[in-house]
């Protein structure tokens, strides 16, 4: 990804603004220019620069007052700020440092040095950001927080396995869980919190907790309907201020080993792909439910499918059907259907090694998750 270098220049002198703007643009900076602090505030409503470089001496609102105004607004407070000043005055600099200004640049500093200073500063910020992410990742590992299971459940007469690849190897918004109730019932959970990386990953735990709780509560009440489980989760998510701005898809499948059947309800998820071994045909199993938390009534349904030996079920998130060709990125469900067809008479392990899935690892378009369930006896 190209390194973003958006800078907001604030100076009442149009000449300085123009010269600085041109010099920085040549160095790959995207320059936003403001003639005054007030104009800068208007620009900030629309754009978020990586750094602000502001003159100190300006009529009406001077650089210090401008800095103070920025500090007062939480959204602007953390944008790195540098003073451009013609004064080499210790007292002035001290005052600026108290205002959490990052640095000073004297106006007569040669432009190449200004550019180097800005570049150095921005790469320090980026390195720090990456270090923080790494630390967060280590902490998450240490806390044993996983949004995918560490082992596979044993389901009598069935074989279940999954394949999961997070976006750019960050933990992401996809989550998988297997909830074993008893020898008869196992729930398979696949969700996708809309978003990528940490933001989505964090919320995936919130959703997983609700889902686990809803499944357990319904079962405890003797309610084995995946539809009513989804209704319960949706009602909670819709009203919960912590997660109601974040939306998630969910595929919920209950495996009943006694009846050799599965019951499925979905919330804004992709249709499942069902392989009927007897007729050697693939069929999409769609549900009517909307994304969790979108509407007070998610319009959920449920369907039960009887499985015979050799029948398979594929449950997956949108990363599996995203791909990139010469025209750019695309989403097409049928790419998965076509890719899996030659593997239908082979074990799932073979498909895991297929070019199709291996290319997903290289392409890194989105989180990718795929769960496979097969009736073995």
């Amino acid at each position, binding site marked *: *990804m190209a390194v973003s270098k958006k800078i907001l220049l604030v100076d009442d002198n149009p000449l300085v603004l123009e010269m600085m703007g041109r010099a920085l643009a040549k160095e790959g900076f995207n320059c936003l220019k403001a003639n005054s602090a007030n104009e800068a505030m208007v620009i900030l*409503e*629309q*754009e*978020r620069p990586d750094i602000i470089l502001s003159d100190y001496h300006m009529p009406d609102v001077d650089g210090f007052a401008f800095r103070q105004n920025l500090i007062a607004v939480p959204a602007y407070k953390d944008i790195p700020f540098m003073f451009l000043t013609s004064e080499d005055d210790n007292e002035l600099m001290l005052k600026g440092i108290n205002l959490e200004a990052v640095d000073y640049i004297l106006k007569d500093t040669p432009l190449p040095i200004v550019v180097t200073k800005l570049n150095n500063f921005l790469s320090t910020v980026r390195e720090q950001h990456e270090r923080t992410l790494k630390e967060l990742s280590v902490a998450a590992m240490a806390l044993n927080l996983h949004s995918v299971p560490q082992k596979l459940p044993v389901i009598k007469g069935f074989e279940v396995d999954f394949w999961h690849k997070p976006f750019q190897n960050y933990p992401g*918004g996809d989550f998988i869980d297997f909830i074993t109730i008893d020898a008869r019932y196992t729930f398979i959970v696949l969700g*996708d*919190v*809309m*978003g*990528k*990386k940490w933001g*989505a990953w964090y919320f995936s735990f919130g959703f997983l907790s609700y889902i686990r709780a809803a499944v357990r509560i319904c079962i405890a009440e003797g309610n084995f309907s995946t539809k009513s489980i989804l209704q319960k989760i949706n009602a909670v998510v819709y009203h919960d201020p912590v997660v*109601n*701005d*974040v*939306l998630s*898809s969910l595929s919920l499948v209950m495996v009943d080993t006694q009846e050799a059947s599965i019951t499925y309800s979905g919330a*804004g*998820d*992709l*249709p499942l792909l069902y392989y009927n071994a007897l007729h050697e045909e693939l069929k999409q199993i*769609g549900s*009517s*439910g*909307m*994304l969790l*938390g*979108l*509407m007070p009534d998610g*319009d959920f349904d449920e369907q039960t499918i009887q499985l015979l030996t050799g029948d398979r079920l594929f449950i997956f998130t*949108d990363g599996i059907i*995203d791909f990139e060709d010469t*025209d*750019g*990125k*695309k*989403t*097409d*469900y049928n790419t998965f259907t076509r890719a899996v067809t030659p593997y239908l008479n082979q074990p799932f392990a073979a498909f895991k090694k297929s070019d199709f899935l291996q290319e997903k690892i290289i392409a890194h*378009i*989105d989180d990718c998750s795929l769960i496979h369930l097969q009736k073995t006896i």
Partner: protein
Amino acid sequence: MILLTNIYKDALIGAIQVKEANLTVSDGFKEEMTALIDKGNKYIVVDFDGVIYVDSSFLGALVSSLKYAIANQAEIVVSGLNKDVSGLFQLIRLDKAFKIYSSATEAAERKS
């Protein structure tokens, strides 16, 4: 700016200015939509004409804008979905959450 806005009759049309509506623009898009709703716009058309790919982060921003719109008695409709994007909307039932029009003008005129 991710949206180029334009008033047409009583509708506000926001045309998405990027080809790939993804993670890098989704936060900005959400902020712009929130601002449009805060300004009191009651009928907003999000025009996808020219957009070839939409990822789940962007869809998340779109549906979360819809929730904000509903809370503010405003309506968001979409237009100009290409075949892939329109297919995706149907696959994950977003066609139940948004009215879909073929063009921004049709959306503004509420032609079914």
